[in-house]
């Protein structure tokens, strides 16, 4: 598309707006793009883009994957633009392209890392062709926005540009059947020892063969529809994996990756399977732009999962783990619940999963709670569950329907007051599972739990001295 007069007006206005917002010490991560798109709706099609665009989409993990790609690139001194501090919808992507362009609309850098909201595909892909597009997974997400996985998969298939090479999770049959005409490669994790300790998930959204409608046979299920399957009637099956994790050694914190070129052993930065998938996505993407094992592993092993998503501390011998469990996103919650269940030792779990934006002026549709595997919290090693927030009564019902003894559950409207009932005797780890918009609450909760642990120890020591 040619640059029109309208385009330049939009670009210069957005650039001026960016300067103004910065002078006012406001974030210029969304509004410049929104302004540009308002003035020139096909603005993204007219602005020059970096030669190589790495885009990441999917229900869960896309922010983490982008963060990890960006940190690894920085570690290796590679320059790029990204929408890390902007939104992942059209206005956020446009803002990123504006910040990465000169006053004439020329791209200043050769590489872009762009996180793309999957629902925004119709507004972004007609104007932006990622060189490589990774899809981490496709799961049930916000009912209100994303409806169901079939809808999301259909819009992705319809709008992903034909020239984009896809980097797909081959263990996710919804993902691996996206945009079948496009050039593609698959990453995946072979069946591991820990896969034996799986409980049936409530939902599985890929159950029949897309070719002949026969019920699929799952060779193994890791969770929900993640696993390997084949059709007993025709030749449909999970794809051959190009980048396969063959072994995960959680003790040594290593994973072995087998590619067409051979084997490489990477350092794990997390023992959580969802983060191992995220790492694998990062590795596969970075290999496409020519980074070596040393460059990728060297960059990755210095990283940590960001504190707002996961943190682990120890206070007087008791661990406190905070874990993001996005409310209204049932699979993200289920994965967090499963992680808690499998974590060694006795646990107390604090659940603050209400969407605080919705809670402020609306009434949350709690249907997602019934797609989330609260049943995973019904485990002998979980001694207490504390729930608070506007939806505490709904969560109390849901936990009971998961078969959890109500005596184990503390439910109270005020979150921090509910913590007063936390029982620390015999507890090795306190888990705080929180929503994306509850970071302040998460921090306050963590502080209060730390104080409770310390005062308990001080009390015990006082008793000994007496």
């Amino acid at each position, binding site marked *: 598309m040619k640059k029109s007069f309208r385009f330049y007006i939009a670009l210069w206005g957005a650039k001026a707006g960016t300067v103004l917002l910065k002078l006012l010490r406001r974030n210029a991560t969304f509004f410049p793009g929104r302004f540009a798109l308002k003035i020139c709706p096909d603005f993204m099609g007219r602005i020059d883009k970096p030669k190589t665009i790495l885009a990441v989409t999917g229900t869960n993990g896309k922010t983490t994957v982008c963060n990890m790609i960006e940190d690894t690139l920085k570690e290796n001194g590679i320059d790029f633009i990204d929408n890390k501090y902007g939104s992942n919808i059209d206005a956020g992507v446009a803002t990123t392209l504006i910040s990465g362009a000169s006053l004439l609309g020329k791209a200043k850098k050769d590489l872009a890392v762009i996180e793309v909201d999957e629902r925004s595909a119709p507004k972004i892909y007609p104007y932006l062709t990622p060189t490589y597009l990774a899809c981490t997974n496709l799961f049930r997400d916000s009912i209100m926005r994303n409806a169901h996985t079939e809808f999301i998969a259909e819009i992705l298939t319809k709008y992903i540009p034909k020239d984009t090479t896809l980097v797909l999770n081959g263990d996710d049959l919804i993902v691996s059947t996206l945009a079948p005409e496009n050039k593609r490669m698959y990453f995946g994790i072979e069946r591991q020892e820990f896969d034996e300790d799986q409980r049936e998930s409530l939902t599985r959204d890929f159950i029949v063969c897309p070719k002949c409608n026969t019920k699929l046979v799952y060779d193994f299920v890791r969770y929900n529809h993640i696993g390997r399957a084949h059709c007993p009637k025709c030749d449909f099956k999970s794809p051959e994996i190009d980048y396969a994790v063959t072994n995960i050694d959680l003790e040594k914190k290593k994973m072995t990756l087998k590619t067409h070129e051979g084997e490489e052993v990477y350092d794990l930065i997390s023992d959580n399977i969802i983060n191992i998938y995220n790492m694998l996505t990062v590795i596969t993407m970075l290999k496409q732009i020519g980074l070596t094992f040393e460059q990728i592993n060297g960059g990755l092993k210095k990283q940590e999962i960001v504190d707002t998503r996961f943190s682990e501390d120890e206070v007087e011998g008791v661990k406190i783990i905070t874990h993001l469990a996005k409310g209204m996103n049932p699979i993200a919650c289920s994965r967090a619940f499963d992680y808690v269940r499998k974590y060694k030792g006795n646990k107390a779990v604090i659940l603050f999963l209400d969407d605080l934006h919705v809670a402020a002026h609306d009434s949350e549709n709690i249907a997602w709670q019934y797609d989330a595997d609260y049943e995973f919290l019904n485990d002998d090693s979980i001694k207490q569950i504390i729930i608070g927030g506007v939806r505490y009564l709904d969560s109390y019902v849901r936990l*009971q329907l998961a078969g959890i003894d109500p005596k184990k559950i503390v439910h109270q409207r005020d979150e921090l007051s509910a913590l007063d009932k936390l029982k620390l005797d015999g507890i090795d780890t306190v888990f705080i599972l929180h929503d994306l918009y509850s970071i302040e609450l998460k921090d306050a909760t963590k502080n209060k739990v730390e104080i409770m642990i310390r005062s308990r120890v001080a009390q015990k020591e006082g008793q000994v001295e007496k």
Partner: protein
Amino acid sequence: MKVEILYPEFCNLFGDMFNMKYLKKCLPEAEFVETLLDETPKFVSEEVNLVYLGPMTEKTQEKVIARLLPHKAKIEELIEKNVVFLFTGNAIEVLGKYIENEDGSKIEAVGIFDVYAKRDMMHRHNSYFIGTYDGIEIVGFKSQFTMLYGDNSNCYFAEVEKGIGINTESKLEGIKKNNFIGTYLLGPFLILNPLFTKKLMIMMGKENPELALRDDVVTAYNVRLKELKKI
């Protein structure tokens, strides 16, 4: 007492199967049978007290229509005999005349009710709901790509107090004919509406029904009702 759940492997998009799990807790003595998509519905040859169908994807709607179409006469007969049906979310559309796509193409449906649905896949409607059915205040949520059109003034499920009826212009929600109830409200509808659940059990023939987790679900219902009225 027998409850038939139609096509649970597909028609379970928004936690809807917990309607049946909760009902099972309320009716521990009842038999709950699941009919998969490639099976013949039990209601064709067996006596059932409730037939449940939950929301489904647009592609699944076509499959379900194909499965139910051969049993149209039987469904009509059972509705006349006051057998209880509960269809939630977009399930009601499969029993209408047709479903119309944005391009004007039509998918012929089973044709039991004189209504039709229109899809608008890029505009999802979301709303909360308060309405009244038989003196019971019904609460819930709608989240859908379709609206239903046609005259339901003689066969509606609930009068709308807040929210929309079968379409944005309508104040009459759902379809009710004898003991057939179809509503666009989705998710854990029976858990959210304990008073209605009790009524449903009476319709199914249960004497003096008891609600599972009664105090907790009723408290949650009262809080939600108050909250929704305030918005």
